């Protein structure tokens, strides 16, 4: 990673940073408006009501967000820790694309695995995820990946099911499902 070096040199505003600040402003506005519309700011005895805190904090976030946008537009300063997006301009495009593809694969497969928990069960589906990520994303030998996935399953089973007796879902692998058939 090549993070933006700390410098006070002014430069053009960064699009990603402006988008991030925009998101912050939108979140602040959503909470402030939601609070103002839906909840009383003060209770009958003038006590602090449920709407006050989100209204004040939301409005403050909008204000701070606008100040940040102004700061970015006017100075474009790249002080360390000022929300400087990681500078990826010097990167090899092919490598960047590869990294993005990998991140999307990892996140996508994890989301699919999470969605399959009720069907396939928590431990089986997560062990499958370990196997799939190791073999298909990381190109590790399948037998090694299988061993790692099985080891993960066994350790988690011993800790959560055998020792802590946590009621984890096993989906179609639940023996009760089969015994009823």
């Amino acid at each position, binding site marked *: 990673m090549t993070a933006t070096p700390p410098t006070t040199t002014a430069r053009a505003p960064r699009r990603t940073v402006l988008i991030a600040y925009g998101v912050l402003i939108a979140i602040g506005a959503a909470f402030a408006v939601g609070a103002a519309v839906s909840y009383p700011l003060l209770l009958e005895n003038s006590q602090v009501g449920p709407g006050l805190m989100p209204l004040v904090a939301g409005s403050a976030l909008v204000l701070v967000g606008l100040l940040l946008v102004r700061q970015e537009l006017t100075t474009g300063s790249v002080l360390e820790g000022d929300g400087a997006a990681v500078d990826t301009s010097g990167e090899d495009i092919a490598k960047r694309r590869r990294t993005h593809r990998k991140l999307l694969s990892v996140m996508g497969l994890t989301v699919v695995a999470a969605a399959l928990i009720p069907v396939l069960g928590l431990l089986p589906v997560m062990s499958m*995820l370990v196997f799939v990520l190791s073999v298909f994303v990381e190109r590790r030998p399948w037998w090694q990946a299988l061993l790692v996935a099985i080891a993960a399953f066994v350790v988690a089973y011993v800790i959560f099911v055998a020792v802590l007796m946590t009621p*984890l879902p096993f989906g179609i692998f639940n023996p009760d499902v089969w015994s009823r058939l």
Partner: protein
Amino acid sequence: MIDNLVLGFQNAFTPENLLWCFIGVLLGTIIGILPGLGSSTGVAILIPVTLAFDPLTALIMLAGIYHGSQFGATITAILIATPGEASSVVSTLDGYQMARKGRAGPALAISALGSFTAAMISLVALMAVAPVFASVALTFGPPEMLAVMILGLSTIVVFASRNVLIGVAMGLGGLLLATVGVDVGSGTARFAFGQVELYSGIPFVEVMIGLFALGELLNQLHQGAVKPIRARFRDLILTKEDLRRSVPSTLRGTLIGFVVGILPGAGSTLASFMAYGAEKKFSKNRDQLGTGAIEGVVAPDAATNSSANMNFVPTLTLGVPGGATTAVLLGAFLMYGIQPGPLLFENQPGLVWGLLVSFFIGNVILLVLNLPMAPVFAQVLRVPYSYLYPLIIFTSIVGAYTVANNSFSVWIVLIFGVIGYAMKRLNLPMAPLVLGLVIGPLLEKSLVQTSALGDGNIGIVFESPIALVILGLAVLMVFGGRFQKKLTQSVMGGRKGGKGGTRNGSAFVTETSSVEAVGELADEIRADERAAAAAARDSRPDRRGDGPSGRGGGTPPPDGD
């Protein structure tokens, strides 16, 4: 005090607690070493495992992880210039330089010894100070507690980022997230959109797992891994000169950690940076700092450890976390049905003193484990990341599911994982967000109670002398540094020249004490750390093939404290 210590030893010295303390310290060290895992992550993902334990045993194990990971993080800082924790960033500077000069062993050994010494001194201080704090805090009403929360938020906001506005924005984001769920004052369900799971608020542990574990993991996938420098057992022997040079630095670091650690919200990162700054100012060998000086390793490590212990003062006595990891630990307390605060020392002396005594035990175990075994632990760095990250996802999601036994937790982890990743890429600090999320409900409760006390008038907070002093401290924290800087500028006729100017000479002396200067020092150190890491990568073209896409540049640590 003696009675309490006896009680603490009785509670901590059970075979079960000793075993879990050992396991916690061992796991913590490994977690600290593993890329992408820090103490916050370690504690967060292991909370579910401890839910079935007795609260004291669970907290002893989690505290063991907290202490262990601090040291584990230093191992990676020294051997691969990749700090495992934000507080170990400074250790990369001289630690990695020592390692490059073939002195990795002494760097690891002095780090363990310095940390241990600081831990012992700070623990004695913690045991002496915490009950006093608790008894003072017993007199605190809602206005004073409101002031304490504001101080905590101000501290983290000011120190978390060079740009205070960013810190404020993140803190406000945390406060807003904390408003989701049933309101403490009126019992109204806010922003829950009919989702029963949201009535009790956005689940805290799951947010932590998402932000720290998954977010950091995705960020790591963007970065390269470097081969560690090998350290052998026989290399660990320190010379007399090493020890002689380390003593004053250890003491200075311990003292700084002690002072910073007591502040709610300050965390241990600030302490380590300040300790390095103090070495630059006071050390006899300050000219060697940055080139592999032992003082540059031992002082920040001592400060980190001392501050990590002292963080428990605000956490236990006020219920306001000292830093991000203690915020997660505070969440653990609440999950076990224990409310930290001034009454904790009165109501649960067995638990508090048992926990404090376990810190002693944990640190002794850490020293015994780490002094001879650091090179062995370093082998963990050789586990291919291509196996490690699928296992981290496995642990995170299984752990998150078991917190409440529903899939909702898993989705929260995934959502906050993406948020955490975006924050990492945008260099936005996580600590204020976490603290805002933890303090939010407490702040609102104090606000509601204060307004009830004043019949709707929150201004009564200004009628309490204690609250005024605390609020004054908060104002000083936010504006003090700027004021001093302006004063210095006016006296000296302008700011001393830039980066180089602050590194030595009078400019550094005049500026180190200000908040701004700590930020500047942090920038310098981070820049140097990146340079060191880049050098590490450049000097070893035979990069691990198993790592994620390797690129030049350092690996930012998990945003621990």
